[in-house]
Structure formats: C-alpha cells, structure tokens
C-alpha cells in the first residue's frame, strides 16, 4: 500500500480530540512542581537602580527570588548575539522581566512578586521605525542587493512614482502560551520539557546560563500548541528560568506565561517600512526600482538579520526587477525583540512589491492583475540576487489555471456591474501570486539527522530533530518511514523530540521540517531496509523481495508473505544491526553577503489566490465572500495535512492584513495584549466559499518523495484579500487613482481609505509622466 501521498489524519488527532495529548503545562500539574512568576518593569527603557525583595522572601510559599546573583554561567539568553540578559540591569522593553519569584503555587509567586520593590531610572526610548532612523538606532549594518543601474533606469523611465508603506507586526497567538518545566533527573542531568521549535538551541542556552556542558542538559519537546516561529528562539528564556530554579531548589520548576505575559514579553512579526521609487513603462512593465526596507527588530538582534535579508530576497515576489537597488536595515527600538513568524520577512518584502504593482496599475488605469501578469518572470530569468528561476513557467501556469477555475474574468465583470448599481456596498475582486524561496538562508542550518530503531517484535521508533507544532511533520515522517519500510502506520511511533537522540539540530523552521528531517529519516530507513532485504532474500531464497503493509514476500508472491517481525527476528539472530542513523544536507546552496549574490534557495514554492470581498461604505466593515487558491506543494506527501497548511496559512495571513492590530501606547506598552483586544480571525472570517486545490503534475526533483515545503508560502496568498479590499475602496471613488491602504486594513482603516477615494475622485489625477527634457 502506498503510504506517501495518502490523506491521513494527524498522528496525534485522537489525542487532540480526547484531551489525551499532553503539553508542557499538563505535565506540570503535580504537587512537587514549584511555579515561577516574573517581576516586570513598567518602563520601555530604564536603568534598574535598586532591588529590594526582602518582603517577598517572607511571603507564604515563597521558595526563591531568582536574580543575576543566582546565575552560575552567563546571564544571557540571546540566540545569536549575546544581547539578552536574563536578569537585566537595563530594561529595554515595557513589561520586561527583571526578576523571577518561585513559590509553591502560581498564586503565591504572583502575590510575592507584588512585594518586590524595584526602583528604576527612566531613560529616553525609541519606539518607532521613524524614530530609530532619525536617531540612527540600528541592530545591524546596511544590507544591499542590486542589479543593473537603478538610478539611471529611474531617470530614463517613462513613468515614475514614489511612496512608502508601513506594515504592522503580528502576534503569533499560538494557543499554547510559552511554557517550560525543568527538573534534575536521576542521572543528575538538567532535564527540560520545553515548548520549543529548537530544542538544541534551548539546550545550548540553558547550558550557557547554568555554566554546564551541553551533554549535561537534555531538552525534550513533546509537541507544541502552535509555534508559527514564535518558539524558534523565544522559548529559551522560560526554559532557562525553569532550569535555573530547578537547579537551585532541586525540585521541578514550571514557567507558564499567561496570555498577557506572553503577548507583552515575546517578540512578534517585524513591523516594516518600505520606501520606494519605481520607474515603469506605459504598459505597466517595471523598469527600475529603488527600495529601502526597514524592519523594527525590537531591543535585541534575535533573528532580525536573516529576517531582513529574506524580506530583501522576496522583494521581487514573482516579478522581474531589471534594474534594482535594495537597501535594508534592522532598527533597534525599545520593544520586545521581534522574531520569526511564518514567512520570516518574506511577507514584508512581498507586500512592498505588491503595493508597487497596484500603484502602477492604478496610476495607468490598468487592471492590477494585468500589470502583475505583464511583470512575471519567464523561464531563463534570474532573480536580483543571481539565482536562476527554475520552474518560472509555473507562475504563469498557476495564474492561468486559477484564473480559469475561479472564473476570474466573468466575475471581474460581475463585480463591475454590481458596483455600478450598488451605492452603499461595493465589491472587490483580486488575484495575487506567491513565490517563496525554500531553505534556511544561513546555509549550515540546512542539515538534519535521524535515528531509527527496530525492536525484535517488528515495532519501530523514529527519532529525528524536527519538532511538532501542529504542522503535521510527525505524520509525514511516519508516512515516509512506512513507505520505505513497507509498514502500516500503527507499528511505528515518532518519539518526542529530544536533544539526547539527535544532537545539534536546526530549528524546525523555514518550512524545512519535512525536507530536512524527512530526508534524514528516509536515509536511515533505506539503510535498514537494505539490511533487512538482504536477510529476507536469504530467508525466501529469492532474488528480490517486497516490503508492504507490515509483511515481506518474494517479489510478486504475496501469498508467501511473512510478517515483518519474522524478518526482524531473523536479522537479530544473524547479528544484523537493527538501528540506523540517517543524515541529510541540502546540496548546492550558497550565498555571498558581500556581493549580495548566490543561490540561497534549493527551490521555490509557488501559488496564487483570488479573493472577493464586500464592503459597507458607511462603516468600512467587510466580509470575505469567496477565496480560491491553487498552491504548489510538489507531490504531496500528505494531502490532508498540506491542505490544512494552505488553508490555515491563508487565514493567518488574512488576520495579519485585516483584523490583527497591535496597538502600543506612547510609553511603549502593548495595549492590545489579550484575546479581547487583539482580534484573530474567527469562523466568521473564513470565507463561505473556500476552494483550495493543490497543483497537479508538480513533482520536485531533489526533495524527499518529490514534495515541497508548505508551512510558510500559503501565508502570503492572503495578499489577494488586501488587494480586493483596495479594489472595493477604489470603487467608492469611481475606481481611478492610487488608493493608499494602511496595514492591517481594519474596518476603520478601510473607512478612511473609502473617504479618501471618494474625495480624490473629485480631484485631478496626478500626472506621473516625466516632463520631456
């Protein structure tokens, strides 16, 4: 039976629906567990002048007040640059933890925290990208990517326009808040259960804080209640606090953030500012682009540099940029340290070029989808960073197939007709494409390991370095292993991800989980299969044998089948090793930062989406009526899982672009700090007509079973919703001229865009044509 390509349920689905699937905090519900609670600073930027925790120490149930003096190793949890003190003497964002109190119960720890007196000397703060630019507050140097001569091409272009776009960040809002539980195990190791996408780094940071060798720290991740990038680097702090507490108290210590704590203490998607100047021809073809991209990295470096460069890599989306100059810089502000989030900068780069495409179209009075299509890459093109765009024809193929299946052309006219007669309600229709580069752009992360164990009864344990956060990685791993070893899924287990099984693993991130770990598991399984085939051929005295569905038989003679366990038993007697390690590294990827050129990506994932919205002109409120998606996942290993990633990524993108509004006070405090004030999409935002197809005939050579990565790319399919909203807003003003649209486009933001469109339809259209010189 074919296991790869079969639509199967998530491997933990039964645990999910019965409540039996365990998460970190579920394991912490024991009397022995002590609980940590932070003392947080009420300033965005301040010096810690004095700490008096004497009153807290005497409170009921209090076991310890952890401070810098308790740190045996290094007082720092920074994942890349060591710039994140665990117990800071200088507060760098509002609500930053300064100290941690550990008590018998969470409530006792919280009450004790209120008794800790910390005095601060407030310092001036930098809270916006504009302020950071003005004050030259940077986390990094300028990054450059360029091709051709943008300046002279801009000078020669028929049309020129310039503008800017500020795009807000996004809260991850994984349903499971950050959590860690640590104890000292029977072998005197520090053992940490962590909700982390990167157990190896959590291990590294815990060892650093405790002053231990890594082999004295074990980190396990059972599963996460969502990650989305938010637990790639930012799980380390809580694991370190729990481990420090456990090591001091010699008993289990748990840290579980409340939603408010999680939202105010952890980084988000980077807010970004794009400033652009673009030259284009009468037909809408882009001739030159000068783009400055700024991202707000928050107070520390974290992953801001690769996020910034991924934004720059994706400033082309699917469009050829013939003459281009892109300058990027990460700003340092007094906010939480903004971090990885599905798309990892890609969305910030792509939204800029999508904004530009729309402005070109509206300037020329052309339909936006026509201008987009005219700028598509064609086979033979290379990107602005010098990578050949293999499979460029997929962009036009997907565009064409989706336009057809969504009946885009006829609906375009229907919407026009509707808008011509409807005064207070307008509709908008838009189609946008996605191209997303797959691989960690830091080349050495593109490696993975696996360890596969077969027991004498024929049951199998699969270990690999990837973590499960709901994306279905473990399910795909099971299918890959079952395919190679001819098993059904029930005889196999994917074991919890642990640092003592596979060392030095990369984060489960960059959509690469299956590409890397799946290939490593396949490698291990193929070694075992070869050994067992050898045994089976002798047992059956056959030249060739087949493994299928838990039985083994001479090729073509299923009636002679014997259970897999029999072959395994014989192998054991013959002293054939029944375990193997597997390894994979992505071939031929490289990038030179100095020249801004290389082949950073193993391949690209493509897709496109169509959205139709309806907008109320009185209030700016809107509804997504229909969405059509065609997305390229290569040859799907697990169609149910992949479809879930596409749909879920899309709606998460819709949230980023519409209702999810981060509001910060003038003092740098997050005001939208809970579910009642920060609005994720609900069922009501899922379009009533939602048609999702996976691209057929899409096998990707050189990737495990011809598949493609799927985690991040669909997020950016949501751009069509933003563009459809813009089209509807434009319709209120008669349809001509640029419509500036803030992001997120809340009803309030759309209302003002409609009002502007209405008033600008009364004014003259600006002339972008250069005066003849």
């Amino acid at each position, binding site marked *: 039976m074919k296991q790869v390509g079969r639509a199967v349920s998530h491997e933990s689905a039964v645990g*999910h629906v019965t409540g039996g699937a365990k998460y970190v905090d579920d394991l912490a*519900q024991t009397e022995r567990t002590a609980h940590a609670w932070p003392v947080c600073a009420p300033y965005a930027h301040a010096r810690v002048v004095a700490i008096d925790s004497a009153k807290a120490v005497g409170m009921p149930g209090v076991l310890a007040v952890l401070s810098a003096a308790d740190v045996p190793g290094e007082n720092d949890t920074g994942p890349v640059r060591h710039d994140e003190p665990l117990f800071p003497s200088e507060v760098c964002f509002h609500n930053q933890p300064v100290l941690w109190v550990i008590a018998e119960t969470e409530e006792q720890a919280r009450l004790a925290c209120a008794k800790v007196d910390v005095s601060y000397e407030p310092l001036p703060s930098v809270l916006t990208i504009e302020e950071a630019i003005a004050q030259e507050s940077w986390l990094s140097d300028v990054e450059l990517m360029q091709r051709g001569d943008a300046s002279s091409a801009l000078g020669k272009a028929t049309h020129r326009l310039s503008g800017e776009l500020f795009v807000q960040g996004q809260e991850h809002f994984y*349903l499971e808040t950050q959590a860690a539980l640590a104890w000292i195990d029977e072998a005197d190791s520090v053992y940490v259960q962590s909700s982390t996408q990167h157990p190896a780094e959590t291990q590294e940071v815990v060892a650093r804080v405790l002053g231990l060798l890594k082999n004295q720290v074990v980190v396990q991740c059972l599963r996460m209640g969502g990650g989305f990038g938010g637990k790639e680097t930012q799980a380390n702090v809580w694991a370190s606090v729990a481990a420090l507490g456990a090591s001091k108290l010699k008993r289990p210590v748990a840290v579980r953030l409340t939603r408010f704590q999680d939202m105010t203490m952890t980084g988000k998607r980077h807010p970004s500012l794009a400033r652009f100047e673009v030259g284009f021809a009468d037909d809408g073809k882009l001739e030159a682009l000068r783009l400055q991209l700024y991202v707000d990295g928050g107070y520390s470096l974290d992953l801001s540099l690769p996020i910034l460069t991924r934004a720059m890599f994706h400033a082309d989306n699917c469009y050829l940029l013939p003459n281009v100059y892109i300058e990027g810089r990460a700003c340092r502000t007094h906010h939480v340290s903004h971090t990885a989030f599905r798309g990892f900068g890609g969305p910030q780069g792509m939204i800029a070029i999508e904004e530009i495409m729309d402005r070109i179209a509206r300037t020329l009075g052309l339909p936006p989808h026509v201008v987009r299509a005219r700028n598509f890459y064609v086979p033979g093109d290379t990107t602005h960073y010098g990578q050949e765009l293999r499979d460029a024809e997929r962009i036009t193929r997907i565009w064409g197939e989706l336009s057809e299946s969504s009946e885009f052309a006829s609906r375009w006219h229907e919407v026009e007709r509707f808008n011509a007669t409807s005064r207070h309600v307008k509709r908008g229709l838009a189609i946008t494409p996605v191209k997303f580069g797959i691989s960690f752009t830091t080349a050495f992360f593109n490696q993975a390991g696996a360890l596969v164990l077969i027991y004498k009864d024929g049951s199998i344990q699969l270990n690999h370095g990837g973590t499960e956060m709901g994306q279905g990685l473990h399910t795909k791993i099971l299918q890959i292993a079952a395919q190679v070893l001819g098993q059904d899924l029930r005889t196999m287990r994917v074991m919890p991800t642990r640092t003592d099984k596979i060392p030095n693993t990369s984060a489960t991130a960059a959509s690469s989980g299956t590409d890397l770990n799946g290939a490593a598991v396949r490698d291990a399984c193929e070694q075992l299969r070869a050994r067992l085939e050898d045994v089976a051929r002798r047992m059956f005295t056959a030249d060739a044998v087949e493994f299928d569905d838990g039985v083994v038989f001479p090729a073509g003679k299923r009636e002679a089948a014997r259970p897999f366990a029999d072959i395994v038993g014989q192998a054991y007697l013959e002293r054939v090793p029944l375990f193997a390690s597997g390894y994979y590294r992505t071939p031929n990827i490289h990038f030179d930062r100095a020249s801004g050129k290389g082949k950073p990506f193993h391949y690209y994932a493509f897709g496109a989406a169509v959205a139709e919205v309806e907008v109320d002109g009185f209030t700016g409120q809107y509804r997504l009526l229909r969405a059509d998606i065609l997305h390229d996942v290569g040859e799907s290993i697990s169609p149910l899982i992949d479809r879930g990633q596409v749909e879920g990524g899309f709606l998460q993108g819709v949230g980023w672009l519409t209702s999810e509004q981060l509001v910060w006070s003038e003092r740098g405090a997050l005001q939208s700090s809970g579910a009642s004030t920060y609005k994720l999409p609900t069922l009501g935002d899922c379009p009533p007509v939602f048609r999702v197809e996976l691209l057929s005939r899409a096998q990707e050579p050189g990737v495990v079973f011809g598949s493609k990565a799927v985690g991040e790319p669909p997020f950016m399919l949501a751009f069509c919703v933003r563009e459809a909203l813009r089209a509807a807003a434009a319709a209120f003003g008669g349809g001509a001229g640029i419509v500036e649209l803030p992001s997120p486009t809340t009803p309030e933001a759309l209302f003002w865009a409609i009002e502007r469109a209405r008033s600008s339809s009364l004014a003259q259209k600006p002339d972008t044509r250069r005066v003849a010189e």
Partner: protein
Amino acid sequence: MVRFTLNGSPVTIDELDPHTTLLAWLRSRGLTGTKEGCAEGECGACAVAVLRADAHGVARYEALNSCLLPVASASGRRIVTVEGVAAPDGSLHPVQQAMVERGGSQCGYCTPGFVMSLFCEYYRPGRDGYDPESISGNLCRCTGYRPIADVARELQRPAPSDPRLPLLQESVPAVGSVSCKGSAGAFLRPSSLPALFDAWEANPDAMLIAGGTDLMVYANQRNQRWPALLSLEALPELRTFALTERELIVGAGFELAALEERMSHEHAGVLPLLEQLLPLFSSRLIRNRATLGGSLGTASPIGDSAPVLLALDAELTLTSRAGQRRIPLSEFFTGYRQTQLAPRELIESVHIPLPAAPRQRFYKVSKRVLDDISTVAAAFALSLDGEGRVVTLRAAYGGVAATPLRALALEEAARGLPWNAETLDALLPTLHDFGTPQSDHRGGADYRRAMIGKLLAKFHADTAGQP
C-alpha cells in the same frame, strides 16, 4: 460544600476559594484536556459541557467557558469535560471521530474546546442544519476553520442507542443554595431574594455574580479578589419571562442564549432589535452564561445590550429589601460604570414596552464579524405615520461616551418629518455635538465620531425605501 457530577462521577469539595475557576480546578486534578488559551472567555479552549434545563424544562448540554466559571457555580450540575466525551472503552464520540477524519485539529490545543462546543451542538434539541454560532466562541490559530466548519455542517443525528439520550430525557433539577468557604473568602448562592438580602447584609463587602462572564475576567486578568461572591443564579425571582400585549418582561438572571432562542424562534418578529443583537453579542459560549441584568449592571459603555434596550425605551425593576422601584433605563446609567443602583439593590427585571416601533436596526461596528466587542454600537427604532412622517425615532449609541447614550436631540428633531434624504441631511447636524468619543485600542475618536452620523445614514438607507 460543593457537590456536582463530573463525567458521571460525584464530586464533593469541602473547601474552596470563591474565585477558583473550574478550569484551574480541573487541571489541578489532572484533568488537563481542558486548556487555558486566554483566561477571558474569548478563545473557548476551556469549554466544558453543562447539563441544563432549557426554557421548556428539556435537558440539554450547553457549552461554557470554564475559565469564567467559579467551581462553586457548578454545584448541583452535571459537567462533562473532554475526557468524558469518548465511550468508556475509548471509542470516539461521533464529533471526535469527525474531527479526526476531517483534519479538524493541527496543534490540538484548541481542539478540546471545539469538541465540547460540537458535542453540545450535536445533542441540541431542535437542531436544524448548520449553525455557525455553535462554534463561534472557539478560536483556532492553525486550521483556518474550514475543516471544523465542515464537521459542524455534517453533524449527524444521535443514534437511538446513544448512551446519553436517556439522560437528556430526564428533567434537570433547578440548582439550589450553596455555601462554601475557602481561605480567601466565601461563595454563597441563596435560593430566594429574602435569603439573598440576608446574605448580603451579613457580607456587606460581597460582590454579586450573575453569569460571571465579566466579573471573572477581572479575577483572572486583574487579580481582583472579593471576600465573598454572592451568586444570583438560584433566584427564581430573577428568571421570569413574560410576554403580554403591552410588554415583554425578562428576568435579570435570564441567560442571553435562552432569550435569543425565545425571541428568534418562539416569538420571532416581536422585537427584531433583540433578534439582531443577540447573535452578535459575544459568542454562544458567553451567551450561555451571560445575563441581561449582568450586562446592564456592569454599565459598560461598550456593552451592546444597553443601546438596544434604550432604543426600545426599556424600564428596569430594581429590588432591595425595602421593596421594588421601576425606572426608565435612560436614567439608569449615571457615569462611567456608574448606575442608579442603591447599596444592596439589584436589577430584578427588564421591561420592554410593546408593540415596538416597526423599523428596528442594530449596528455593531467592530474589527471582526463574530465574537467581538463593539467599537461603536447603535440601535434605532422608528415608527412612521400613514404619510411616511416620523412618529417616533429612538436612537441609542454605545462606545461614544462614558455611558450608553440616547440621541435625544435627534429624536426630538425627527418628529413629524418625512423619512427622506432631505430629512437625513437635516438631522445629521443634531449629532455634531453628540457624545464624547475617545481613542483607544478598539478605534480612534475620529472614527467613532464619524460612525455616529454614518450609522444614522445607514439606518436611513436600510429603512427609507421600506413600506
């Protein structure tokens, strides 16, 4: 002492702090399937099912947010958590099976809450096709909802052999009095008004709790604690529902979901404003608990029920030991979260005069369609004479001032005018100085200001052409 039935087994708790939530208690007992996602009743990850009698005394499961339910409130009830949904032999319940097969879970953290909402919907008497409201109070960050909506769309009927059916045929006893103490205070649930006033006098610092969907947010998010919580849940006096030709009387303790069912089904068309309001009032998980009295008593300036009841010219019966008094709702709100209620006085019932003006609209401006809090809410009720002239227009807004507000100048100016575009233009200036909109995380003052007039214009556009 608190006694209830949990997944079929009796539970007795001798000592309990009043603010301890059912969620925290379940998890501390190792029933960790029920999850905390937000602790403010927004995400539904903590949903559990409670067996309750509906308006006709028929037993039904209702999903509640256990993060907002004091454990003591469970007293006398049957509670089912996600651990109690599958059969004892482990075979999955049909809603669980469908969630597994459909790909309804990814990370799994929200899943127990969805399962509980679907479980209650599965057994809901009178279920007639897909009701998106059944899962509108559950947030999922992974799936995009499509597969879960498919599960809800394709719910089967319970099989005749379903082991839960006998329980659903039995009558559910009304909950009785409770008295329970913990180190941090007491939870008291008297079963008559006189007993309530006795308890209140004995505990003058007690806080009243009805559905608790607002109060418990303060306990969870701001760590507010009270020496005693005085529950109104077992007071029959607060649970009246009477519809006459002259008025609708709704007890202050009537749950919004029950009111919704009455007004949208049995008495459809009587008060369109209530029919429009209730599905937009938070989520069903909240409406199953929240009461009309509670939503008025908190005097929130952004509550959605106040504008509607103001536009309907509602009156309140307030009750204290000294007796009853009846006041117009328009005089009830005296300031930001301030009301006319005297010490140890409570809302007993809400009176809505009938017949109401025929043209009624409720508008809720918020960031998303379902399960949101209003940026601005407005309710209008209009009656015209035979020539299309305004007899009465009542207009009330939430979110534009420190209290819910009636637009009296507008109402006055409209009288006698034809309901046409010229009148709208003439009326809009009466709203120029109306309210004192502020900026906050839900919206800017300028947007709120703009909405005051735009919603009147929308009401006009929606009703002017009507016969």
